């Protein structure tokens, strides 16, 4: 699938940006030229040969703080998506097989999760449960899990009710073969679209939380945290938030592009499951004045 995504121009762009971001996340802390926590006397300095992006209000090197903070910011999004996958997909599949009462209860739980005011809940629950990274990841993961619940439930429904699966099993195919041949092909496209969208959404939420100092507390560096510390000194350096802002937006955009590319590559299959309604641009048949 990766090869087919790479054939699309938008897919190449998305993969390229995400690759750079991933390199930042893995090697960022090692690449940082200065100690991200060590303050100097040169507070709020502009960009210079030493400090490419200037320094913040404690004289800490901004570039180093961005590089060192990329691990939590980016890998956090991946962790959120993986937690959401497990938390959502397992009950989603079970809802088809465990009987009416479990089905009803899990459907209402999903309704509830969707109706909750997302960020307030994420902030409140994370802070109440101890304000650490694991708490933040699990809270956000559970809050975004409904997507995976729906995708996996829809897949399980088709499998449990389709005659070709029944026919395959009757003609002696092993369950493993049926899963590989029929189920996997049905599940993979919507699942990968949901993964890409969730990573984008998870990234936004994790950045928002770190911006508020929830989950990862200052002075630990994060992209959201760098933005927050520059907010207070906007009147001295109105341009300062530009780099972290662009980084955050590029990453979100790349995740969205990737989701669209996967959708294009896999055809309509994922469309109905992950997005409410989107009609493609249609040939114009009627036109008003």
């Amino acid at each position, binding site marked *: 699938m990766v090869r087919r995504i790479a054939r699309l121009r938008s897919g190449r762009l998305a993969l390229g940006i995400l690759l750079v971001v991933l390199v930042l996340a893995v090697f960022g802390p090692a690449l940082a030229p200065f100690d991200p926590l060590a303050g100097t006397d040169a507070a709020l300095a502009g960009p210079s040969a030493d400090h490419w992006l200037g320094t913040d209000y404690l004289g800490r090197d901004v570039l180093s703080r961005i590089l060192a903070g990329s691990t939590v910011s980016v890998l956090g999004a991946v962790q959120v998506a993986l937690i959401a996958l497990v938390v959502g997909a397992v009950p989603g599949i079970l809802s088809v097989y465990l009987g009416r009462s479990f089905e009803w209860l899990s459907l209402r739980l999903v309704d509830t999760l969707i109706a909750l*005011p997302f960020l307030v809940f994420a902030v409140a629950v994370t802070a109440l449960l101890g304000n650490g990274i694991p708490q933040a990841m699990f809270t956000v993961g559970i809050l975004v899990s409904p997507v995976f619940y729906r995708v996996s439930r829809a897949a399980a429904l088709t499998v449990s009710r389709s005659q070709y699966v029944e026919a395959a099993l009757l003609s002696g195919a092993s369950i493993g073969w049926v899963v590989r041949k029929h189920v996997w092909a049905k599940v993979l496209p919507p699942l990968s679209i949901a993964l890409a969208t969730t990573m984008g959404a998870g990234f936004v939420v994790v950045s928002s939380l770190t911006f508020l100092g929830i989950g990862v507390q200052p002075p630990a560096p994060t992209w959201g945290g760098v933005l927050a510390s520059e907010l207070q000194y906007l009147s001295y350096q109105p341009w300062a938030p530009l780099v972290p802002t662009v980084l955050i937006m590029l990453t979100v955009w790349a995740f969205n592009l990737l989701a669209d590319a996967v959708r294009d590559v896999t055809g309509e299959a994922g469309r109905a499951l992950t997005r409410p309604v989107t009609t493609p641009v249609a040939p114009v048949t009627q036109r008003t004045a």
Partner: protein
Amino acid sequence: MSSTTANRGWARTHGVSRALGRTLAVFVPVFFLGTFITFALRQLSGLSPAHLQLGESATPEKVAQLEAQWGLDEPFLTQYWHWLESLLHGDLGMSWVDGTSISSALVGRAIISLSIAGLALVIGVTVGFALGTLAALWQTTWVDRAITGFTTVISVMPSFVVGIALVAVFAVTLGWFPSAGYVPISQGLTPWFEHIWLPALAISFDTIADVARQLRSGLIGAYRENYVTGAIVRGLGPRRIFFVHVLRNGIGPALTVLGMKFPNLLGGAVVTEAIFGLAGYGKYAADSAQRGDVPAVQGVLVVSIVVVVVFNLLVNTALVRITPASSRGV
């Protein structure tokens, strides 16, 4: 003639009550599950007023005494029931930190947050509807491409990023609007508006983008229906076709999205209030949560759940009244 009108009226009220019934069947469980999860947060967090008030001097006897005082020694479901009962009387309990009433602390703060969320909703609906309609009417032209590009760009901008950009441009560099604070509406409409419109704009981007997209595809879909062809053949004017046939049938997805976006607008309060230095309920929730003041946090969460449920009931009722298909109970 008169009997068909009566029939149509009956069908409509019948459709409305059926749709309301279906909405209630979803949102009554949502209310109870949401409040239950909220209430269970105390158990999950393992926090108690004793740790907040006694601090280092806590002995097991003193802790037990305080917990009994707060009614925390009762069985969990009894506590939940008592809590729900006082909720219905508008009583959200007392703060663990200073023993003050949470309801009265929330009223003033909720007004700030709700005015911002409300204004954001108005911005999202008007701009989103305008863009979506324009894109649908001029589909596949440069207008459509420009609008689609614009909505794509603003949909990848997280609200705190937008907020910071707005502060940097309009408040700090240009100095047109105040960067922080709140002025109650009683001190004049203009100062009030000047203080809340930047935060409202910051959280409205997501809604603008989604409403515009859904409306565009809804309208384009409606234009391809046979009854529109029929209306054109019958010689109806483009304005009548748009408002009577296309808009009423194509607006559904956009309205539904509005119902789904509203929780985000309410939740976005945490971030915008931090950026614009507003003492709304989002800030109250974040501060209380960091202090470990569980009842105060629960108060905010419950209020937001109630607002979301009520808003969704309103949206669904509007949906039934406007779109012909859903008033027939389809």
